[in-house]
């Protein structure tokens, strides 16, 4: 322990603490801007500077380690003048359109400007006038708003190893730019959206499709149908002022009906269906000498990553479409038929924790129904905006049920939202299908948790199936390199592009720290635990669709509607 004095308070703090950590220990909050709890220390914004006795220079609290006897002052006139001047400098270079900014009221710079009551900025407003990047259907970049904290670069290069963002130019001409291309779409960007979470301001955000939804709702001809992805509900609670997980599912359904959705169904239904298709695909690959290990294919950011960086391993990808796209293909065929609705009148909306889903829905091959299978994708954040606009008090809203045929789901589908969830759901089903016996305990705890790579072995009647799970693409890359080198011991690998899986997806409420992702993981398993049915193959509506429509997993209809193929992205940098 090290003895320090902070603003006159004597404290003993752990060795290796920074001033920032030490101050927090004694209850003093030092403002930060470039600091990110899960990233390396950058110390480039200098907003956290403090006075250290005996030192003429102010020290950045985020980077300066404490030493024995250190005397720190966090709010002297010198410190406050420095912080405020630095904020004035950053703000004088930053668009002043907070009211219409996507991060209004959720912006670290805006909060600091308020805390330090920046009023009359002495520096003349000087906006660079850089061009917005609107090249992708998933996310936009507004480089004028960038404050060059570099958190997006670390998210992209270190956490995701995608390297789509880098720095160009020096001094006040320095810019974060998509690498090797003028626009994001020409870069290796896989549209996971982790940069959005990393951004303290509104320099990167999701492409919004709310207006398209409102137009469809306003059109009396259209039947607006939506699916809800597993990880949305629990995080949406955060957007409407509740604790993580506190919004009951049926109240969520009622809220969507209030907004004007005609039918609310669930992606969880196709998550269960995915388990049947993918589980059987795995068994088939195992028994017929197919390409192994098989990779899951639910995460569109991961698909983009594989197509971009591992095009030689596309045969390892399960041919199963993601649950979103399975749903899209079925809602305008099977469901339309069951409901007697003209599929051309169905406006298919998907509510996702993801921005890569917007890109996935726009893929040209995703029109198996004869129409665009999923018309628009809305993120959890966009639904949050809609709900806030609606003026609904969700604590008082009576619950409502899902519409029939594609609304039922099991606990196995719920956990799709967590890293390891698809694997666990698959194991629950594959085990029972192969062993023809009931699992005593459906909890495969080895598949759970926030560790980057998890692995397990399952003994299926003498066949030992080795599985691995990775979330965050830097971890996935390790498993992929093993496969590429022919050294992978696994049969089945689950990969989710985003840290934590979908709970940490690029479309979720702005998530600054992994602790929030872990909190959401916990909420998911609580939900699974509470489900009456927890195995995908016991989903009654899934049984029904096989009886009435698909007939068998991997059958002709499934092949037509539920499976897909992948394309190497032949980008210049490869």
């Amino acid at each position, binding site marked *: 322990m090290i003895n320090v004095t902070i603003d006159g308070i004597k404290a003993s703090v752990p060795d290796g603490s920074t001033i920032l950590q030490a101050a927090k220990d004694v209850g003093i909050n030092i403002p930060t801007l470039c600091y990110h709890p899960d990233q390396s*220390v950058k*110390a*480039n*914004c*200098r*907003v956290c*500077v403090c006075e250290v006795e005996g030192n*003429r*220079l*102010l020290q*950045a609290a985020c*980077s*300066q*380690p404490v030493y024995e006897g250190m005397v720190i002052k966090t709010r002297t006139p*010198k410190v406050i*003048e*420095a912080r405020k*001047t*630095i904020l004035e*400098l*950053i703000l*004088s*270079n930053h668009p002043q359109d907070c009211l219409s900014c996507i991060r209004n009221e959720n912006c670290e710079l805006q909060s600091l400007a308020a805390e330090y009551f920046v009023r009359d900025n*002495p*520096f*003349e407003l*000087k906006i660079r006038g850089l061009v917005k990047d609107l090249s992708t259907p998933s996310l936009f970049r507004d480089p004028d708003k960038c*404050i*060059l904290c570099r958190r997006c670069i670390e998210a992209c290069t270190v956490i995701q190893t995608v390297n789509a963002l880098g*720095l160009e*130019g*020096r*001094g*006040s*001409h*320095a810019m974060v730019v998509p690498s090797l291309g003028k626009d994001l779409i020409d870069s290796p960007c896989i549209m996971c959206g982790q940069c959005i979470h990393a951004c303290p301001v509104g320099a990167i955000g999701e492409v919004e499709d709310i207006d398209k939804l409102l137009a469809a709702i306003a059109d009396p001809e259209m039947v607006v149908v939506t699916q809800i992805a597993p990880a949305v509900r629990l995080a949406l609670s955060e957007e409407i002022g509740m604790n993580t997980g506190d919004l009951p599912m049926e109240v969520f359904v009622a809220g969507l009906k209030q907004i004007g959705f005609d039918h609310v169904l669930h992606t969880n239904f196709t998550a269960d269906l995915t388990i049947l298709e993918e589980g059987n695909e795995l068994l088939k690959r195992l028994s017929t000498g197919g390409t192994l290990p098989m990779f899951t294919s639910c995460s569109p950011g991961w698909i983009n990553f594989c197509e971009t960086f591992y095009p030689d391993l596309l045969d390892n990808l399960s041919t199963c479409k993601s649950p979103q796209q399975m749903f899209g293909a079925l809602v305008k065929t099977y469901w339309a038929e069951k409901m007697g609705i003209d599929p051309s009148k169905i406006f298919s909306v998907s509510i996702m924790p993801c921005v890569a889903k917007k890109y996935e829905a726009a893929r040209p091959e995703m029109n198996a129904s004869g129409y665009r299978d999923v018309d628009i994708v809305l993120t959890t954040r966009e639904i949050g905006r809609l709900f806030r606009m609606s003026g609904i008090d969700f604590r008082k809203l009576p619950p409502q049920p899902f519409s029939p045929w594609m609304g039922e789901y099991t606990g196995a589908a719920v956990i799709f939202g967590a890293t390891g969830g698809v694997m666990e759901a698959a194991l629950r089903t594959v085990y029972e299908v192969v062993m023809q016996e009931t699992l005593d305990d459906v909890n495969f705890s080895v598949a759970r948790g926030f560790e980057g790579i998890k692995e397990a072995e399952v003994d299926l009647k003498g066949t030992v199936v080795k599985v691995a799970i990775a979330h965050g693409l830097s971890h996935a890359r390790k498993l992929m390199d093993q496969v590429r080198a022919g050294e992978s011991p696994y049969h089945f690998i689950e990969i989710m592009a985003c840290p934590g899986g979908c709970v940490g997806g690029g479309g979720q409420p702005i998530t600054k720290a992994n602790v929030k992702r872990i909190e959401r993981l916990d909420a998911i398993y609580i939900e699974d635990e509470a489900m009456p049915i927890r195995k995908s193959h016991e989903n009654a509506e899934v049984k029904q669709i096989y009886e009435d429509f698909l007939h068998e997993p991997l059958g002709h209809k499934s092949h037509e509607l539920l499976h897909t193929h992948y394309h190497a992205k032949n980008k210049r940098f490869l």
Partner: protein
Amino acid sequence: MAEEMRIVLRNYGKIDPLKIDDYIAVGGYNALNKARSMKPADLINEVKSSNLRGRGGAGFNCGVKWNFAYMAQADQKYVICNADEGEPGTYKDRLIMEGDPQSLLEGMAICAHAIGATQGFIYCRGEYPSVVKTLNMAIAQATEKGVLGDFSIEVRMGAGAYVCGEETALIESIEGKRGEPRIKPPFPPVVGLWGKPTIVNNVETFANIPAIVEKGAAWYAGIGTPSYPGTKIVTLTGDVVNKTFFEVPTDTTIREVIFDFGGGIPDGKGFKAVQIGGTSGAFIPAANLDTPIGFDAMTEIGAVLGSGAVFVLNDTRDIVDVTARIAKFFAHESCGKCAPCREGTMRMHDLMDKINSGRGKSADVALLNKLGRVMSYSCLCGLGQAAPAPVMTTIEHFPADYNAKLV
């Protein structure tokens, strides 16, 4: 009249720099042999007690620095010579490298022995391609002679960025990254090039080493001013008769440098100001001319010795105009990493430009002072911390020049 004293330039003009035999004939590499007969700890103590302080500008005690790297446990350590001589008006390192490259190599090899390094780099300014040739030839000769033993030296060229003279930015540049300063601590002697303990010293610092080892710490400590002993090469530019270089003891005063060695101001004009230490140095008025150039004496008058560049302005010069150009230089050379430097240097240039073109108000001068003050203690590295000095010192010493331009 004060006299020159040549230590680092002891062989300058006397030997053929491209012939190692010439260097050896005048006693070259005796110091390295002597150093190798000493225990590293004793060698470091010798350097420490000579009180040699870094000639790059920061003035850190050289032996103390070496000791940090010596104490650090690592499988590999590095010695880097900072030859990224980018301060406008400074060409002292070039003189040494062109005139006596072996003395630099010898100094580096002594350091390598002291800290336990086998690999050295000379990071040479990109605008010095001919110096790179000379250095490579010198290294080849020294290698062929076997005088360097197991210590090998490689020359790396800069690409023109001023900030790469900052030692951690220099290290980043050698590693092939964007030339940007690192967060300190950790300091390079503990975590440096490729994460290994690394000594980065200036050319002039290394060139002092053989003389100190040969003649002893006590001899060196007795030269010049005690707190910053030895000599300093000063390079004279601007409105001065002798636009040339001198190596002088560190107790020489600014007045002696300009009026004795420099021969005063030409064309019968008067003295206005002198900027010492390079572009980021303070402007010094006539009242402070009797200050010795030694590090601490300069600090006392709010100035720096820096690189030893001496830029003289006569009394007809427009000092606001000169300062505005300097502000432009820093806006151009800021690497853009930290906010106060990235935005601050740009704003400082804008404000100086506004005042210089007759559009400024007294509030702009006040804002410059506030901005400069904040930058000087908030920026991440020395570039941003020093950039405001010319602006703030000209405002302080020559307020009338500013007032004359305000609306």
